[in-house]
């Protein structure tokens, strides 16, 4: 099992290297920070631009391959991912932003999974009853409504609650109020900031898991092995929860691989709307600011998250399905 995961790990490291390198070469040949520098007032001379960018290791006069070698050497020897055209160090900014993104999404991802799978099981057990129809209809709605609109709606609801109560219970944007005393007050402030984005992302997210889990469980409810379990003397519900549930979770576990990276890297709507400066919004900003190193760093991050998601899915699958365990 460990050897298997280690083998997969090595494969993913190789894949991350390839995507990141390809991403860098693409970025370096298309993004031209020198053009943006020219819009400054007073307009700098081309020599000044080249000079200023060279100081940050972004010399536009080198060819892409030379810059790629420089950039790669920096990472391999010093773990230095370079600098932005504005002089900021990628390593430092990346550290801050990853932490913000993680805080924003981790709780929602876990909640999304747990609620989605639980509701899927619940609705499958009550197929075609009112609760099933209501839950599944909601999931389809959440599927259809574009995420930004859903986030705005949750924000509006939070503001409404604030207005009704006459005091500010929830913060709809931002990470924390600066200058709070450590302790209880800070904790309450944190919760007040966390609540709205977490709820919003969770409400939108669980639909796909609910639909998938419901469908896979229903596929297995009348499976031959459930009938065998009932013939042994288990009640229908016992047979379903002991035999069908685990089998139906296998495909859901596999789908985790593709949703976790999607939420993380594609979370720029949430980050923009709730004003959490995370990795997602950074990646968009990097492109608009012709920032080669930042764009590549966010891409590398996306691949790492994808690899982690895939390994997690492999791990979960091997845990629940003995057929894929390798000897």
């Amino acid at each position, binding site marked *: 099992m460990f050897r298997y995961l280690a083998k997969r790990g090595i494969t993913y490291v190789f894949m991350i290297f390839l995507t990141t390198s390809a991403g860098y070469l693409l970025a370096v040949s298309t993004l031209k920070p020198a053009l943006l520098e020219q819009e400054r007032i007073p307009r700098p001379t081309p020599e000044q631009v080249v000079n200023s960018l060279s100081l940050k290791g972004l010399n536009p006069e080198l060819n892409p391959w030379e810059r790629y070698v420089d950039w790669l050497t920096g990472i391999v020897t010093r773990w230095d991912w370079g600098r932005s055209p504005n002089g900021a160090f990628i390593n430092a900014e990346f550290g801050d932003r990853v932490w913000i993104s993680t805080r924003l999404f981790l709780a929602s991802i876990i909640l999304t999974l747990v609620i989605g799978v639980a509701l899927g099981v619940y609705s499958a057990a009550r197929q075609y009853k009112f609760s099933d129809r209501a839950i599944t209809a909601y999931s389809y709605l959440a599927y259809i409504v574009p995420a930004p609109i859903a986030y705005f709606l949750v924000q509006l609801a939070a503001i409404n609650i604030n207005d009704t109560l006459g005091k500010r219970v929830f913060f709809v944007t931002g990470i924390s109020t600066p200058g709070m005393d450590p302790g209880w007050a800070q904790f309450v402030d944190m919760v007040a900031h966390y609540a709205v984005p977490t709820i919003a992302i969770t409400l939108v997210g669980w639909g796909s898991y609910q639909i998938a889990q419901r469908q896979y469980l229903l596929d297995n409810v009348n499976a*031959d092995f459930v*009938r065998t379990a009932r*013939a042994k*003397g288990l009640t229908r519900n016992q047979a379903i929860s002991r035999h069908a549930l685990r*089998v139906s979770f296998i495909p859901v576990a596999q789908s985790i691989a593709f949703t976790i990276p999607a939420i993380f890297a594609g979370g720029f709507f949430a980050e923009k709307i709730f004003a959490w400066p995370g990795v997602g919004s950074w990646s968009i900003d990097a492109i608009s600011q012709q920032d080669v190193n930042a764009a590549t760093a966010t891409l590398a991050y996306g691949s790492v998250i994808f690899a982690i998601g895939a390994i997690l899915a492999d791990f979960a699958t091997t845990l*629940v399905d003995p*057929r894929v365990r390798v000897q």
Partner: protein
Amino acid sequence: MSRETSPEPSESLPVSAVAASPVGRSTAERLHVAGLHAPGDAVLSVRDLNVRFNSENGVVHAVRGVDFDLLPGKTLGIVGESGSGKSVTSMAIMGLLPETAEVNGSVLLKGKELLGLSDKAMCKYRGKELAMVFQDPLSSLTPVYTVGNQIVEALTVHNPTMSKQAKEVRAAELLGMVGIPSPKDRLKAFPHEFSGGMRQRVMIAIAIANNPRVLIADEPTTALDVTIQAQVLEVLQKAQDETGAAVVMITHDLGVVAGIADDILVMYAGKPVEAGVVDDIYYNPRMPYTMGLLGAVPRVDISEKSSLIPIEGMPPNLVHTPTGCSFAPRCPLAGPECLTGEPPLRKVPGSSAHQAACVKAEALGGDVDVHDIFHAPPVPVSNFAGIPREDRKTVLELRDVKKHFPLMKGALLKRRIGTVKAVDGLSFDIREGECFAIVGESGSGKTTTLLEIMEFHKDQDGEVVIGGLSNKEAADSKTKFAMRKEMQMVFQDPTGALDPRFTVYEVLAEPLVNQGMGKSDIKKRIMELMRLVGLQPDHVNRFPNQFSGGQRQRIGIARALAVNPKLVVLDEPVSALDVSVQAGVINLLDKLRAELGLSYLMVAHDLAVVRHISDRVAVMYLGKIVEVGEVGRVFDNPRHPYTRALLSAIPVPDPEVERNRERIILEGDLPTPLDAPTGCNFVTRCPVYAALPEAKKQKCLTEEPPLEMISASRAAAQLEAETSTALDQRFACFFPDGDLDQSSLVSHASAGPHAP
């Protein structure tokens, strides 16, 4: 097994297994189990069982009044075709039908009413008093739990106080009882590590875990190969002996129940139409349906050259309750009296237990010939009948055809760890007007052989010559086109082989358009084809789903015949069809061969069908032909031990023959092609090899036996001299007439079906 551990003094009684269970039993029950019950004391009695389902088309009355009594230790066979309600009956008894099903009547288990109990209340009986073995062993075990886990679960449900160790010991004992080697280690295996036959053994182990009083087996061997079927039936019988349970055996195969059932219930359209002791049903059937069913099955043990009995039409749709006898629309004897009111089951005069639901039961005594009743077509005579084989043209020839698949391992860098020899040096030829059959278990390479023939490519290993066209010489598209005109194929699953969006006209027109035929000619040809295969020409505009399975297969045959091929490849042409329908298709194939001078290459696992239709047969084992020859020679005088075992494993629909014959039960399953032995392929399972002295064994292990002309036996040599022609039979074995290992022989001759 458990007999040794039993503290019971009464050794001869099958109560030992009960004693092994920790739950105490009352004295009355012990007597009951021991068979000391009053006569007529049925362990399970079903009265007027009715099951209705709601469907989109209305209420389907799937089971309409089933009655039977099951005596302890006895076996009841319920026989019927698909849709006859036999499985629904068993599920209703088990209480496993969906909640939407409406079940009426009475099911008494040892005097206690089971119908109407809640799911929870039924759980006390399911798995403990009533147990079931299902049809498909591949899907009946939960894939994510170990086999041991699933057996232990059956014990836990009914014996919550049993200790973990005791349960494990019992589980291992059960696995051993059903014949799984090294049961203790195998408890930790997952279902996917077991073959189909082994999984069915596990299912039986689960079913008998709590010594049930009634064991229901729903088509327990239908999904298995014949040699494995023989093993599993043997295990079922042993399980019955160990537990003393009464068995309900549900099957469509009249052969399977002939040897092991005490009583038979024949079902048709949701109703029992004939019931009685096994000999009554097989030797003195009184209901035309039963008679037709018995006549529709070809026999593997008799070389009969009469046509099979086709039962025209199809079973009624149970949405509409039949007003008269439900079989009347298909019955050749039906008169006006059959259409007023459904006949009930009535006692047949001269027999105590024999009942039949037919108004003419009295008239249908033993001296009535079924062939006359059902107007079986005359045996067709081919133009080639008189011409010796050597003088006919060769339509297909294979020379040393091989198909080896490399077995690879590794994620990025693949390395070859072995070779699967799916087809390993096949040579045979088919002459005009001849039917050549390839038989063998799944995995023996039958289908790969067909695919290799259809492939027809230059780079193939070996030569394929079809109608004089060789794959080696010119395998360009033109030759291939010409080849396809020579040879066409009929597939196993008639539903899957026809495009559901094509009308029959379009299905049949496609090959003709390909051949560049004009529109009016196509139309004429299609009408001709429809009549040829026995379909109404005005049905050409229907879609395949508007036809029954048998009719669809006829469409498949018509499609194959459209371009006037010389050779038709038949891949399991009737295995997806019910017995009564199967007979019609086989008769049609027989007729077409004679009328059109066709040659057939048939692949089949049903040896009875092969015997009926083929002239020559090849038995395949692990990619090689082990015996080949004229069908009568090979079937009546098999020389290779595998052929002998295969033939002995096939159940025959004749209770007398079944009870008295000796069966060769092969050990284990087909070995994986990876560890195929170097010498003879068959050594791992060979009953002759097992009995050979050490000195001779070496030859089997190291040398590959060639496929040779028969000449070893003196009798054969004599026969050869008498007829002055070489006998058409070759086989690949060094010791064809060697003694068989005694442990592989099973016979129930002295004890009857099963002694109490």
